[in-house]
Structures are given as structure tokens and as C-alpha cells.
């Protein structure tokens, strides 16, 4: 099996483990990644949106890279920075890129529509009007 396929399988195992783990603490996350930026990101969002999940919509892999388009399902039950919990449930799109080395995520990037997130939380009225 080529490396890209192996990395896709690894990322599916990672997504399933993250989605099903009730206690996503640092030790658990570090079983999957050496990228501290990713660890901090998951911990930050997990305290704002406890138990959030990511449903994979599309996966593209090449060499040591895997790109995942996801639908994040969240409930706002904790502080998001200085924003108090709104208790709203919502879904938002995100795209994340992962670089994998020896069955560990070593580098990541993530882009999501923060304006969409603010609107879903009822916190932002301005928006660009797209076609």
C-alpha cells in the first residue's frame, strides 16, 4: 500500500479516536501528534465546545500530506475567549492540512469561516454577501 493511502487510514483512525474519546486531555492527544499547536487548538476548542466532533466530508492525500474537509458539530457550553456560553448547537465547515511522519501528525494548518461561527453564535451581524 502506498504512503498516501496509509496516511489516510491513519487519519481516519485519528478522527474516530478524537470523536469517540470522552476525555480529550493532553496525554491522549499527544498519542497522535507532536504538533503542540494542534494540541493547544483541540484543548482550547474542547473547553468552549465540549465533546465537539468532526465529520469527514472529503480527504485528499499526497505523499506525507492529508487534507481533510470537515463538518464540525459543536455546542457552545464553555467560554470562547471572553465570550460567555450561548448554549447554541451548530455546524461549521473547516479544512485542515496534516503532515504525517511515522504515524504521528507533525504539522497542521486549519482554515474555518470565523465569521460564520460568530453568526451561528448570534454574535456578528455584518457579513459579505456572496453570490
Amino acid at each position: 500500500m502506498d504512503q498516501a493511502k496509509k496516511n489516510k487510514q491513519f487519519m481516519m483512525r485519528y478522527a474516530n479516536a478524537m470523536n469517540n474519546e470522552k476525555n480529550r486531555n493532553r496525554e491522549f492527544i499527544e498519542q497522535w501528534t507532536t504538533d503542540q499547536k494542534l494540541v493547544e487548538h483541540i484543548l482550547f476548542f474542547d473547553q468552549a465546545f465540549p465533546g465537539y466532533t468532526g465529520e469527514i466530508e472529503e480527504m485528499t492525500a499526497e505523499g506525507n500530506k492529508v487534507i481533510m474537509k470537515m463538518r464540525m458539530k459543536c455546542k457552545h457550553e464553555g467560554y470562547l475567549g471572553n465570550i460567555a456560553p450561548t448554549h447554541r448547537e451548530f455546524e461549521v465547515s473547516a479544512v485542515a492540512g496534516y503532515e504525517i511522519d511515522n504515524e504521528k501528525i507533525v504539522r497542521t494548518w486549519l482554515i474555518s469561516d470565523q465569521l460564520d461561527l460568530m453568526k451561528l453564535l448570534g454574535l456578528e451581524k455584518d457579513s459579505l454577501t456572496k453570490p
Partner: protein
Amino acid sequence: MASAQKNKEVVIRMVNQLNGVHKDRLLLSQFIADESLIEHFLFFDSLLPANQLLIDELTAEGTRIVLRVRVRGRQEGQAESPREVEFPLVFGFEIEQHRIVHHWLVADQAKLLDQLKIQK
């Protein structure tokens, strides 16, 4: 040459052709068969005329391409001095016979709006 590599070259050619010029339907339809993507490009070009896509990452698998870029442009017309903005965007493309036939995109619109507001 494998199709993934050929498709990457299609996308690179498209970006090179579109960068820094006003985009019209005729130019866009040389590369794009997906009408909603043409509308997106026209929309962004009306907001940031002759904008540029700076490629940060290009990933290909079969007929699919994921293109991560920064869109750099200048909002003209409403301000005394033009506003320079740059915001991240990711495209997913499906390519058939050298043209994009399907797409999705995720952009951080908050970053774009912040830059436009900050410079007001």
C-alpha cells in the same frame, strides 16, 4: 505524466493567468466549467479588483486538487486611499479534461472584514 500531476499544472496555469488581471467570464471559462465558481471569482474581483492568489500549498489526488492560497488585493473606490487586504482561502477542485467541473471553498471571511474595518 500521471493525471494528478497534470491537474496540478492546469491549476498553476489558471492561477498564473488570473493573477493581477481583471477577471471576466470569457477568461474564467477557459479554465472553469463550474458556473458557481465563475460567480465567486467575479464577486471577489468586484470586491478586490485584479486580486492575486498566492499559492501556499497544492495537493493532488486523482481528479481532485486542494489549493490553499492567500488572496491579496486592494479595495478601491470607496476609500480615500486604497485598502490592501490579504486573507486565507482553501479551494477544492475536481478536474475533467483540463477544466474545473466542481468546487468547494472555505474562506476566513472574518479576517477579510477585520482588515477592511481596521483600515476604515
